[in-house]
């Protein structure tokens, strides 16, 4: 097998594992505050090997997540594509910043990411999907916090994986 294809396969393997962790491993009570591992993994690969992970991967995994989560088809896709674009655009700056700064930036990114799901796309109930829903705000904060705290772990784990298996 060609090295490029093998690398691609190894990268997609991590994304599929992250998708599996997201969908099946967490107890139901923590579903709204658990980090989105597939997005964290996608961000890592965009930082580490931006030429190996592109828009197609972001779009495909976004649609996978939409199908699994039951959200509006294309919503995760659009977010994953935008985040991938931003990551690739600024990966030189992001990659060299200290871990705590990366986590801090990701905290805000994930907080904003969560807010998109509060938007009422199909005009169901205007009272619910705004910032006055304190439960949602609290869950968004916890979600962003847990995601940003998980980032160093994901980064170190995937860095080890990349150095061990994904060869240039």
């Amino acid at each position, binding site marked *: 097998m060609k090295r*490029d294809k093998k690398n691609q396969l190894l990268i997609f393997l991590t994304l*599929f594992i992250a*998708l*599996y962790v*997201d*969908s*099946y*491993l*967490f107890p*139901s*009570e923590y*579903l*709204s505050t*658990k980090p989105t591992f597939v997005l964290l993994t996608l961000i890592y690969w965009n930082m580490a090997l*931006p*030429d190996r992970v*592109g*828009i*197609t991967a*972001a*779009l495909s995994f*976004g*649609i*996978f997540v*939409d*199908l*699994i*989560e*039951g*959200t*509006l*088809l*294309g*919503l995760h*896709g*659009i977010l994953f*594509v*935008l985040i*991938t*674009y931003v990551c*690739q*655009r600024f990966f030189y700056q992001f990659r060299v910043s200290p871990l705590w700064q990366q986590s801090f930036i990701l905290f805000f990114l994930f907080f904003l990411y969560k807010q998109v*799901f*509060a938007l*009422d*796309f*199909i005009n*169901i*109930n205007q009272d*619910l*999907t705004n910032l006055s*829903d304190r*439960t*949602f705000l609290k*869950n968004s904060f916890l979600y962003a916090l847990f995601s940003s705290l998980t980032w160093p772990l994901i980064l170190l784990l995937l860095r080890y994986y990349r150095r061990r298996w994904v060869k240039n």
Partner: protein
Amino acid sequence: MRRREHKVSYLSSEAIFAIPAMKPSRVILSLLVCVSLILSDIFYESSFKIRGYAQDLFMPIGAIVNIPADIIISIPDSLKTRSQLKLSLERAEEENKKLKVINQFLHKVSKENEELNTLWSSARLNLDNYSFVRKRSISSSEYQPLLIVDVAFNSNLGINDALLSSSGLIGKIVSLGLFSAEIMLLHDVRSSIPVVTEISKLHANVRGSGIGRPGSIEYIKKTASYELGEKVYTSGIAGLFPEGILVGEITSIEDLADSEFLNVEVSFVQSPFNQDFYLVYTDEKR
């Protein structure tokens, strides 16, 4: 090295080893694809036609959950061949392990049986219209949670069939695959159930407000006389659900000065988190 990994300087003809950012045209194209998917889902509910089959595709991923348990069960067999010197001792240990595993399984099976019996005894309508389903997973979407259940191949379930627990209504089927079905829970903000209250006998619609939040009875005039703790049942209007299935109970009635209607909250009878088996009621009339 692949060509797209470097550019060539126009001045010196030397390679510039910088990874190019992705092309904006591809990003725009992807965004357009996503927007068209979103619009088709909003206006034509296109995703409901494929979600059930998509869940069938993801089923093998879910099956990986069982792999650790399978590995643990196969450990005694693999040790047996390696340890012939301590054969007798290990046999005893192995028997012990087997008994423990069997005990665990028996305990699990009896618990499952107990759950199934409770469920079955709760069926009040034509028993032939009921079928069992097992929970596979719940999505993490807060406002639009989806319950995924395993269904038997070639089962006669249909879209909009009611999902019930021993306590009451859970939701309805919105998408069907070959081995999976997606359930829209009562907690879903898109869910609206025609109901009737136990004491005041008032008809209304209960709308979900997201997981972990009470539902609300919509558009109720301030003159309506609801009571706290009053039970809410399906009314059978619109033919979506059979009549008289418990939905929840009224937990709060607020008369806000700036609102045209009463603010009535309903606590749903069953959390989808703490149950593994459900009944699906298929209405023959539909």
